[in-house]
């Protein structure tokens, strides 16, 4: 008997909650972005676990799409961060409170 699926789900829930805490607690925008990636990974783990529990390959296919969208999101998000830093703003989210053009 292998490890029951509920253990994986609990681990994914813990990882997701740690990502939430990181996004809310940290001030560095890059670290906040990393925490969002952690939350995405937690959801991916949930998908794969349900794919195994239900015997359905669709969960793994969804993880594949999530990976692609996450890659695109990272590229655009880091581009936005780079362009913000080009304007000599600070490293923290508190410095970005003025969203004027």
């Amino acid at each position, binding site marked *: 008997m292998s490890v029951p699926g509920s253990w994986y789900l609990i681990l994914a829930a813990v990882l*997701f909650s*740690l990502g939430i805490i990181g996004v809310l607690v940290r*001030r560095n925008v890059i670290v906040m972005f*990393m925490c969002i*990636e952690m939350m995405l990974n937690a959801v991916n783990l949930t998908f794969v676990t349900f794919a195994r529990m239900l015997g359905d*390959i669709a969960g793994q296919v969804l993880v594949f*799409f999530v990976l692609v*969208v996450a*890659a695109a999101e990272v590229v655009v998000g880091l581009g936005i961060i780079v362009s913000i830093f080009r304007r000599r703003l600070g490293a923290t989210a508190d410095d970005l409170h003025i969203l004027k053009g």
Partner: protein
Amino acid sequence: MEPTYLLAAIAKPDLITFAAAALMVIGGAFGVIASRNPVHSALSLVLTMFGIAVLFIEQDAQFLAAVQVIVYAGAIVVLFLFVIMLLGVDRQEVFGRESLRAQRPLAAAAGVIALGEVLLLARTTWATGAHAANGPVGNSYDNVQRIAAEVFSTYLLPFEATAVLLVIAVLAAVYLARRVVTTNAEEEDSKMVEGKAVDR
């Protein structure tokens, strides 16, 4: 089943693998949150990604484990590190100065509440009754084939949509990261619109 019986029933290699990977995942997550240096956070993120990849292999998702290591640990984290080094933002975060009072304890409490909520929901009945019309997961020999068969038949339209999404993302990244040399950027933009290529 009682927890002690359950522990005895699980095969030892599976249990050890799960425990080690779970330790990697949780330890890496704590490292991402608690590191003052963003570079250390990125390296901890690699640890988390590898742990997730091990858990993928443990659950017969070999293709996704390989993609996880290549895309996340190989590309995304390197991109993070590249941006950190490029911008020189690897100075340490000042934890003491807060503009929003009592924000950190409230944030930690919100995270714990979210965890409790998810675990509470897990005790109820999952709303995943009916199976989709897809095949089983497969074993280590035909996992890639099964995913490919689904992606290129049932999920062909989303697959094409992701191709469009990637092209849009590349264009957006190039546009966002371009260097505006002169101060009259709007004037150059209008020249670009008129069709005269401006060398930047």
